[in-house]
């Protein structure tokens, strides 16, 4: 009898132990590599106040100079020397380490100039012939009204750097971060001593945790010391931006933030993303790829109809704005010979499907984060700059009628 009781006790203890271990295994194996709804952060008032104070501090200070080192796990580092002066002047010198050559952006609130030391690098927007003619002693001049243009985006678009800035210096001049309206919440991750400086870490979640940023904010001056961004695409992309040599109480001399081209230099009219796209009359490249609902989508299946092909990505504010408009357009024109076709080749499938569901997108969507699908977008449809959304109108014979990038506010 006693032996039976002992066995019962041991079996009960073992069962409880296994259940507890099963629960523990489930909890600890929830890997940060895989997106889960619990990654979406709810607002904590104190953390939100820290974030708002950081933005306010950036906007209020009269002069700001800092060094920013942007890196990724692949080991490539870009160094930025950023000088910002109110009301609207700035200068950014950027180097891809370990190269000693510098690219410079200078702006005065109306115009932005970009120029290079020596021979300029071959850029995404270049072609071999054009590059030979514009290798050196050239500069770019663009209209750039203060507070309306993103400096970081200009740097990214040119493809002159390996890792772009996470926190856009344009915030200093009143530019609103386009991701700001998509913040789910801000929460505290506790205090941290970052290289001898007392900081508070906050976590900011955007677009249902499709993007997460962590800010190490100094308790002393409310400016960041480190920023980490995680983009949850088909693979997770991590970038880190480290600030140093921060000076906010200096006066930046005017000559540091002004520039005029030396004699003999020529202005280079750099091709925009639209200039690189397919032209009217060209054959639209065929594709046969998996769709969001588990089937397959073949472009030639829509021969005989006009196709509005929209390439999109969850993490782009422009895409998030244009897709509901396209859904309305699709519903209004369903009975006509006009079809809307979505194309997503970069996103994490779970996040993309959730986005499609939440926005009730019923038009067919390619959803395939594979190399083949990416080649279709980059090489087939010539989207070298990866500017999204990318729209291509294709006629009933399969020829391109028009192609353009981006989303303009109010554009329906």
């Amino acid at each position: 009898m006693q032996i039976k009781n002992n066995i019962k006790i041991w079996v009960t203890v073992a069962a409880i132990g296994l259940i507890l271990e099963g629960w523990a295994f489930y909890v600890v194996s929830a890997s940060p590599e895989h997106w889960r709804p619990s990654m979406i952060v709810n607002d904590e008032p104190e953390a939100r106040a820290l974030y708002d104070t950081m933005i306010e501090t950036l906007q209020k200070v009269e002069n700001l100079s800092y060094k920013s080192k942007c890196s990724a796990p692949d080991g490539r580092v870009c160094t930025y020397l950023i000088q910002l002066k109110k009301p609207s002047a700035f200068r950014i010198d950027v180097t891809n380490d370990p190269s000693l050559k510098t690219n410079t952006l200078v702006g005065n609130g109306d115009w932005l100039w970009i120029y290079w030391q020596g021979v300029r690098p071959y850029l995404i927007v270049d072609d071999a012939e054009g590059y030979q003619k514009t290798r050196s002693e050239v500069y770019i001049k663009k209209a750039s009204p203060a507070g309306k243009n993103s400096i970081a985006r200009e740097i990214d678009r040119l493809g002159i750097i390996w890792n772009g800035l996470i926190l856009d210096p344009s915030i200093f001049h009143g530019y609103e971060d386009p991701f700001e309206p998509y913040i789910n919440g801000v929460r505290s991750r506790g205090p941290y001593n970052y290289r001898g400086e007392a900081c508070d870490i906050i976590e900011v979640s955007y677009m249902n945790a499709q993007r997460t940023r962590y800010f190490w904010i100094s308790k002393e001056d409310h400016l960041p010391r480190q920023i980490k961004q995680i983009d949850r695409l088909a693979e997770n992309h991590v970038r880190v931006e480290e600030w140093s040599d921060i000076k906010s109480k200096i006066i930046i001399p005017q000559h540091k933030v002004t520039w005029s081209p030396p004699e003999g230099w020529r202005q280079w009219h750099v091709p925009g993303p639209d200039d690189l796209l397919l032209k009217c009359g060209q054959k639209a490249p065929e594709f046969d790829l998996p769709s969001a609902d588990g089937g397959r989508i073949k472009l030639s299946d829509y021969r005989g109809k006009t196709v509005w092909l929209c390439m999109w990505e969850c993490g782009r504010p422009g895409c998030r704005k244009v897709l509901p408009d396209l859904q309305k357009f699709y519903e209004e024109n369903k009975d006509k010979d006009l079809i809307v076709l979505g194309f997503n080749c970069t996103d994490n499938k779970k996040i993309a499907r959730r986005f499609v569901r939440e926005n009730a997108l019923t038009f067919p969507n390619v959803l395939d984060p594979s190399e083949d699908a990416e080649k279709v977008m980059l090489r087939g449809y010539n989207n070298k700059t990866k500017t999204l959304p990318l729209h291509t109108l294709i006629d009933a014979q399969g020829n391109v009628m028009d192609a353009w990038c981006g989303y303009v506010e109010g554009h329906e």
Partner: protein
Amino acid sequence: MRKYELIRETFCRRGYIWIVHVVWLVLYGGFWWLFLPESEKEVGDFGRFLFIWGGFFLALALSAGIFGDDISSGRICVLITKPLSHGELYLCRLLGLSLQAAAHFILAGCIIVILRFVMRKGSIEHLGIWLFASWLLFITVAALSTSLSVVVGRIYNSLLILVVVVTVYFILGLLLSSMHQKADTGILTAFIRYAWPPFELLSKFAGGEYGKYSLTVGRFSVSKSIACVVHSVFLTVVYSIIGIILLRKRQFSRQRD
């Protein structure tokens, strides 16, 4: 009474055990004095040092030959006579080691607190969690080492664990540093995370995750912390069960090796 004697025996089983404790405590103090910067800094660096030296190396040092010595000398035949069962013998040894470690870490904590107030450098924030995590790691490694000492003679149980751990982490480091092989290391990484002594989980439990390119930042939540502790204890139990089974199955001789 016999159980109490077995537990107490782990404190003075070998002459060098007291020396090990003293040297380890001096090492903690030395690290605190020499390597922490003058300004106040999170206990993170010291915590990890304590975790590895106290949780891993100390466990190997104290459990070296814990059964191997008795098996080699033939004394095991005396120990496994009734009324003590094999399981009780094993558990007494392990309990002795755990109590030793608990006393060691409490003493280490006191020394660090004294040093903190005398030298005015470093931070004792989260020191308690690091001590607890180190103790959990200690008992898991001690259980593994004690089980291994049933089949491996003399002090080779500790040496074997040391060599295997260093080799495995070295190979894993080489594999992970090669990006295109990341997918292939999934099984190995999972094995090391869940079946191996829980270095990674316990260090994240104590220190949080602040790695530059890590996919998360901050300390473990309460549920994850509890889950870590549960998993660590479960692993200890599994290693112990293996050790008890091996002890029961082995035939012992009264002859000296």
